[in-house]
């Protein structure tokens, strides 16, 4: 099992952002985190990647607790944080070289991987451009490139297609599907068609709690009407009484 999440809880003062989330994820699976804004998707991802420490519960990456062995665990993860933050003053190539230098170790030291990532994401044309001058689509691709540079077993992508145009969305989804066979991938999204397009499993999170963990097809069957779409199911599950 590549990722084991046990009863993960995060409190910010009196506010509970994530409550008792548990799941396992193995190679070949693409898990979609679904949920309204503020549901706790990002906080959960931040705990899985070791950026935030949980209030209780733990995260095991290949059986290593990320709080106890942060460096070994982080080596196996590629992460695109929300909004794909980057150092805007750097050129694309220098930025990727920087990430490579920090990821470099005895087992991973061939800088060809930089060019493989560049090729995969089609960044050849903008290599010497400053990141802050790039379009949103390119920035997102640079964000993805730094995450797959070291060919990690685990990919965690927080809203990877947010703000992209339909063609770019399609590209990113194609890339995720392409890589999914030998990795465990978690993506968060509130675009439901995306779940259908790339995920093998979908988890709905609302108010910090996991409500459902099923395959997209099973999710569809939960609809009250026969021809319910994922949209309907999502609304039924997350809106509660007030929304109906």
């Amino acid at each position, binding site marked *: 099992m590549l990722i084991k999440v046990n009863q993960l809880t995060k409190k*910010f003062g009196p506010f509970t952002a994530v409550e008792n989330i548990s799941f396992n994820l193995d190679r070949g699976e693409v898990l979609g985190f679904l949920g309204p804004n503020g549901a706790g998707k990002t*906080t959960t991802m*931040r705990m899985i*990647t*070791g*950026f*935030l420490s949980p209030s209780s519960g733990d995260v095991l990456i290949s059986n290593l607790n990320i709080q106890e062995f*942060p*460096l*070994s665990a*982080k*080596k196996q*993860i590629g*992460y695109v*944080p*929300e*909004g794909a*933050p*980057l*150092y*805007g*003053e*750097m050129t694309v190539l*220098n930025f990727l070289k*920087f*990430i490579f*230098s*920090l*990821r*470099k*170790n005895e087992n991973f030291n061939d800088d060809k991987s930089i060019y493989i990532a560049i090729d995969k994401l089609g960044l050849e044309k903008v290599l010497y451009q*400053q990141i802050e001058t790039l379009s949103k689509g390119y920035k997102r691709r640079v964000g993805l490139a*730094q995450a797959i540079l070291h060919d990690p077993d685990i990919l965690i992508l927080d809203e990877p297609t947010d703000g992209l145009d339909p063609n770019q969305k399609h590209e990113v989804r194609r890339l995720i599907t392409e890589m999914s066979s030998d990795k465990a991938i978690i993506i968060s999204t509130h675009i439901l068609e995306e779940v259908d397009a790339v995920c093998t499993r979908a988890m709905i999170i609302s108010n910090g709690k996991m409500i459902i963990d099923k395959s997209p097809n099973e999710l569809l069957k939960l609809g009250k009407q026969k021809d319910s779409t994922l949209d309907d199911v999502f609304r039924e599950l997350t809106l509660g009484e007030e929304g109906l």
Partner: protein
Amino acid sequence: MKNIIVITKRELYGYFATPVAYVFLVIFLLLAGLFTFYLGSFYERGQADLSAFFDWHPWLYLFLIPAIAMRLWAEERKNGTIELLMTLPITLMQAVLGKFFAAWVFTAIALFFTFPIWITVNYLGNPDNGVIVSSYCGSLLMAGGYLAIGSCISSLTRNQVIAFVVGIAVCFLFTVSGMPIVLNFFSSWAPQALLDTIASFSFITNFMDMTRGVIDLRNIIFFISLIVGALFLNVIFINKNKGL
């Protein structure tokens, strides 16, 4: 160590990729010259030494160093790149040291470009170059002290203006703590031992000792331990606030 150097390099690159470095260098050199020749009456003193130059350094640093330090962590937090940095397989200590060293190297570069004044004074007379070297060392150490404080404060906020203003205020306290403005506040009620302790934290006192050409271990230990202490707090603050 490798990671610290990689981060230091990237930060330095960041200074020179933006106008920050050039604006700072020009203003620093202009002000250093102005202070020395007008306020310090370099020519009128008729002495071949650089005390008219070095005496102003604490005041110059008081305003200029927080301007360098303010961005160190506040910018990372504002742009979200802190999430990228902290999910790479590096330790927080490495990140803090890497950034601090970059800023310190940068001030060393600024200080280096004041060499024409050293040439001038050697052209005009026969100064004690030992004193000048020890003054330069003292100035660099003091700059490190200001930077460490600034870096620490920068980690408390995501707003660079706040980091700048609070940074100046705290640096001011350290600058003048040996002067009546601070000591009078305590002298009426505090025991002499406390007064001496407060006075010993003065940047000016510690720096002035070094500008006399005396390299006293106590002064060096003062600045080094101040830097270590501030950076240690810096690590704690980031750990506590990084997700907010």
